[in-house]
């Protein structure tokens, strides 16, 4: 099967699944940049500074690995006019960013 004969997963002219998946991609990139910023404390605390960076990197990988599934689910949801709200993804990302910010505050005052 060639690319041109592939069936579209949805017919939404607003390309909602594409836009949402790209929005996750942009967030992933922002997460990687933020992860790198934590290496600023490597000189002060050594390998411990890698912990938040690794945490962010793992989160970025999880986002990347779930992108295909996310696109499929959202496209199917648009096609059947009902999509499942991704409460898990929202909760873990909210928690991760909050924890990173708190870790940053701790690092500023206690290093």
């Amino acid at each position, binding site marked *: 099967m060639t690319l041109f004969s592939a069936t579209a997963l949805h017919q*939404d002219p*607003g390309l*909602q*699944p594409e*836009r*949402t998946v790209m*929005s*996750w991609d*942009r*967030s992933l990139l*922002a*997460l990687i*940049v*933020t992860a790198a*910023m*934590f290496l*600023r404390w490597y000189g002060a605390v050594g390998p411990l500074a890698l912990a938040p960076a690794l945490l962010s990197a793992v989160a970025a990988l999880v986002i990347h690995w779930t992108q295909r599934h996310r696109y499929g689910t*959202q496209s199917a*949801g*648009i096609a*059947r*006019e*009902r*999509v*499942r*709200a*991704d*409460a*898990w*993804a*929202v*909760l873990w*990302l*909210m*928690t991760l*960013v*909050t924890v*990173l*910010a*708190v870790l*940053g*505050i701790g690092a*500023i*005052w206690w290093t």
Partner: protein
Amino acid sequence: MTSPEDAVTPSRGRLASRLLAGGREPDPRFTLANERTFLAWIRTSLALLAGGIAVEAFTGSVFDPLTRKVAGSGLLLIAALLATTAGFRWMRVERAMRQGRPLPLPLLVPVLATGGAVVAVVLFVFILMRPA
């Protein structure tokens, strides 16, 4: 009672059923738009997070150590506040859409706008007053 439509469409999921109980499923486009709005807030929060660390790390020639720490951790505090607020706002909007209520106002927008304007004015004055 389960309608034939419910039998073929996915359920809300265990967590979503608990957090977003009741009401009717909204247009899927609105749900995805809400998710993108949440992600936009998260990126704003991450930008503040990276900015806060950068202020603390790279402004040694401009600010004294205490000012650097206060400015950096202030930005990180706003980042934490933004991320938490973004999650709760996502949930409130999802609930409002399911129950046919008006969408809640983003209270953080005027706070951020005012804060940004104040910081800009303070920096402007600081640059003007700074001895050459």
